[in-house]
């Protein structure tokens, strides 16, 4: 059989990997296997425009480059097992799929709350189907409890307010989004949410679900017609079990996105744990929209060179992480890794009032490792981006 690359996962990372393989000169067969029935689509609108009802499902489809027209898409199919030694996958219809090169692009799924109680009325938000199911539940006056005040939870809270729902956010930490952006901006965003009518119960955990309510660790019961669990994600790696890989938090890769000891296996996107010499040599997973494209570029160069017997070029791989979030009329934009900072340095604006633009730098060892902008026009983003790329 002619040489064949299989991409496991048909999200953005899977699509970008296929496109970059073509751009790197790989003209052999490519099969992309995706568990969802949909062709690759864009997830950020799911908690924003799609949930708000401003965009329909079709508007989320990702543009595909002409170079991947001959790719074979196996959609609505799941990879259930892999034997890396035999270079073969098993699909959920029992078929065996052999490969010469494998791209791991299976992303994440929502973590679920491990507490007792009925499952009715409980939602998560990762897929288009999740977003449509949740949107159907949002209507004026409905009581929505969002569990988890990370970015997805806070975006859902803002969007649900836009539908006229009565929204409560429950979060064990004292400040929303604190891990990502620190206490000052987290507090400021919390106030903005409260002004818009969202109630926060911070420092509180959910201990059980009851019919039409959630029960908190202080014994309080919060009425809920709809519950949204937004407590983070779990990597989809179980299908790689039994191959001796480090799957402790996603798939461990080297700086070429290669899976340890397997030159013909690379990983891309949210599922990949890789080092970034811009910061240090600690491998991390990065759940940002820019990561599928950046890692696919690197991984495809690695894999295409390996399959063609070409040497790898020795350019370093140090992508700049970037992330945005939309809550009400506020756009938050982050460059670098603010979470690595141990000191925050205000650069512009009044972080307390959040009027006008606000910029905050995050320093580690007196070097800016990240910057977060709220309400700063895009014309000034390049300036702040250079602040964290220059150092």
């Amino acid at each position, binding site marked *: 059989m002619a040489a064949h690359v299989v991409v496991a996962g048909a999200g953005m990372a899977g699509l*970008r990997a296929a496109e970059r393989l073509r751009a790197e000169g790989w003209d052999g067969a490519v099969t992309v296997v995706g568990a969802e029935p949909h062709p690759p689509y*864009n997830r950020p609108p799911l908690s924003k425009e799609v949930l708000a009802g401003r965009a329909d499902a079709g508007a989320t489809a990702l*543009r595909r*480059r002409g170079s991947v027209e001959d790719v074979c898409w196996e959609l609505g199919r799941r990879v259930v097992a892999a034997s890396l030694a035999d270079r073969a996958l098993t699909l959920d219809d029992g078929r065996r799929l052999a490969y010469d090169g494998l791209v791991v692009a299976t992303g994440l799924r929502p973590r679920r709350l491990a507490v007792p109680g009925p499952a009715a009325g409980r939602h998560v938000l990762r897929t288009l189907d999740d977003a449509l199911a949740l949107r159907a539940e949002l209507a004026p006056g409905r009581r929505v409890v969002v569990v988890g005040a990370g970015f997805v939870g806070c975006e859902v809270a803002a969007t649900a307010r836009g539908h006229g729902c009565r929204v409560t956010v429950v979060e064990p930490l004292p400040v929303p989004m604190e891990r990502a952006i620190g206490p000052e901006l987290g507090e400021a965003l919390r106030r903005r949410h409260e002004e818009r009518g969202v109630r926060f119960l911070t420092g509180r955990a959910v201990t059980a679900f009851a019919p039409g309510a959630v029960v908190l660790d202080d014994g309080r019961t919060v009425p809920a017609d709809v519950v949204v669990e937004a407590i983070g994600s779990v990597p989809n790696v179980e299908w790689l079990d039994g191959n001796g890989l480090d799957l402790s938090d996603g798939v461990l890769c080297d700086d070429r996105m290669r899976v340890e000891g397997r030159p013909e296996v690379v990983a891309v996107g949210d599922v990949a744990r890789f080092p970034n010499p811009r910061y240090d040599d600690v491998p991390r997973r990065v759940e940002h929209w820019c990561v599928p494209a950046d890692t696919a570029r690197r991984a495809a160069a690695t894999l295409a060179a390996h399959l063609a017997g070409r040497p790898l070029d020795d350019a370093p791989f140090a992508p700049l992480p970037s992330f*945005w979030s939309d809550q009400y009329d506020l756009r938050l934009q982050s460059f670098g890794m603010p979470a690595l900072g141990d000191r925050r340095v205000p650069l512009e604006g009044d972080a307390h009032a959040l009027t006008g633009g606000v910029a905050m730098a995050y320093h580690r060892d007196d070097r800016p490792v990240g910057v977060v902008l709220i309400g700063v*026009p*895009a*014309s000034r*983003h*390049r300036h702040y981006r250079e602040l964290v790329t220059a150092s």
Partner: protein
Amino acid sequence: MKVTVDLDKCQDHGQCAIAAPEVFRINDEGRLEFDDAPAEELRDAVEEAADVCPVQAILIED
């Protein structure tokens, strides 16, 4: 090459201006300006800009 941007979708993220500054620019008012008929040599950069647009607002027609 013909480039169009769906301005109903565009949210002035400015990612396109970082990927292909020869073609896309965010002006002082924070609004997108772009060259709708860029030279063929810029195709790779324009494809890249279309990929990195968070709302997928950029269309390339040949």
